[in-house]
């Protein structure tokens, strides 16, 4: 998660520094090239280290062994990944819908703020992972408890950032709308919500990673599918290469999900300061 955060700040930094538009694409290609290069370098170094130091395969298998393990049963691994992806997206999607609705309620009603918001903060200070067994008791060992745990882990960051965004609107913007006799729903839709989007997306980027954590935790606790389950069974058989395949797929999945959210942000917020190219000259 921290790695993804770093690359996000790097992106915006280079974008503000690049003056002309046509140079932006090659720069980002160079960036991608650098990341891929770094990954290859790490893998090569890893392979070489295993070749030289010969650790027990159960402790650290070589990347080539991990790759062969994946090739042995790609269908199995992809099926497990698909299940985890589904759980993550379902939990994340529900967290977004529920979180935004809660945030709107919290901003609009002092009562909801005092009750629901306080409860949410209290709930967030309980290690939510510890609640996972309870969810299994309530919902069984199917997909539902996993989705519920993913939802619970993702929800808080959605709500916190959405509330922050909805609140931090320029009072004069609201005054302008009120002076035009706008309804409070119109103010929400046309001013508060678009104004909150950058903040909401900051929350979504954190939430998507948390949803993945939640899905894995759910699979750890009980179940018969998903990458978390695959890791657990492989561990039981001391099949370290298999554990590593799952870990790498998880890394890929998490990174891909983060960048999908970021791509949505770019698509939806071309107007935001962080997305503007060198062309803007505001002041």
């Amino acid at each position: 998660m921290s790695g993804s955060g770093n690359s996000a700040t790097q992106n915006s930094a280079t974008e503000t520094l690049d003056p002309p538009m046509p140079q932006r694409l090659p720069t980002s290609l160079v960036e991608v090239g650098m990341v891929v290069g770094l990954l290859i370098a790490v893998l090569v170094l890893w392979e070489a280290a295993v070749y030289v130091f010969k650790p027990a395969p159960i402790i650290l298998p070589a990347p080539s062994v991990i790759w062969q393990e994946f090739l042995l049963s790609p269908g199995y691994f992809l099926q497990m990944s698909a299940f985890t992806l589904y759980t993550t997206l379902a939990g994340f999607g529900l967290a977004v819908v529920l979180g935004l609705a809660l945030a709107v309620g919290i901003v609009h009603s002092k009562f909801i703020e005092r009750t629901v918001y306080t409860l949410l903060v209290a709930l967030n200070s309980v290690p939510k992972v510890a609640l996972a067994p309870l969810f299994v008791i309530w919902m069984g060992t199917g997909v539902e408890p996993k989705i519920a745990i993913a939802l619970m882990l993702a929800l808080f960051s959605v709500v916190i950032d959405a509330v922050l965004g909805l609140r931090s609107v320029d009072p004069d913007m609201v005054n302008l709308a009120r002076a035009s006799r706008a309804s409070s729903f119109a103010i929400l839709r046309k001013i508060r919500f678009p104004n909150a989007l950058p903040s909401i997306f900051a929350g979504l980027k954190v939430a998507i990673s948390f949803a993945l954590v939640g899905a894995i935790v759910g699979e750890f606790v009980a179940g018969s599918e998903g990458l978390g389950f695959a890791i657990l069974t492989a561990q039981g058989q001391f099949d370290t290469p298999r554990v590593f395949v799952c870990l790498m797929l998880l890394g890929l999945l998490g990174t891909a999900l983060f960048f999908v959210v970021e791509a949505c942000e770019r698509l939806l917020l071309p107007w935001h300061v962080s997305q503007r190219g060198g062309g803007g000259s505001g002041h």
Partner: protein
Amino acid sequence: MAYLSISGLRKTYGSPRGPVTALRGIDLEVNEGEFVSILGPSGCGKSTLLKCIAGLEGTSAGTIRVDGQVLAAPPKDMGIVFQRDVLLDWRTILDNVLITAEFAGLKGPAVRERALALLGRFGLGGFESRHPWELSGGMRQRAAICRALLCDPKLLLMDEPFGALDAMTRDDLNLELARIWQDTRKTVVFVTHGITEAIFLSDRVVIMDRNPGRIVEVIDIDLPRPRHLAMRESPEFGRYVARVRHLFASLGVLKDDAP
């Protein structure tokens, strides 16, 4: 009867050290088609007074009538311009201007045509599909004025609209506002702390003082219209400026350094 009439207006705020009186004993009548400036030092409550007229702030006592109706909410047929342009970054200039129509439930090509015509008139033709951050401060404020004028309001409220602009842009916009007023004869209440600006634009200048915010004098500006920037060098104009300065000096707002 006056289009806007304020009588016995008082506005107090609660504060930890007891109530603070922001405005006291405000009586003011503004006729239809009149341009009235409210001039005063910072903290005299002139912006608060404007927000009360706009129906954006409640009052503690007294009544405000707009077009004969006692004010309870923002009145119909009102446009407002703030010191900051508050354009929405996610909308183009045209869509920013159109937002007042959207709030009023107006849509369609006619409103769009009107918005484009207004933008053209304010020198923003060709900029309608740009975003606010691509424009200079002066252009942004022009767009904000277009937005206020879009629904052809009878009452135009302006809260130090040119206060954040440089002197040249300010002159420019003063002239444009004077022209627009000349053509449309809207009722305008214009809050400012610029003496020259107030005299140049107005039929009457309302002078306010602070602690508590109150009206100390109303000066009729009897200068010919249409007005031109060069008039600011005329002796009559100078006399008005001197009179206002003298008044502020006697109130202790302006310190006179003459011996």
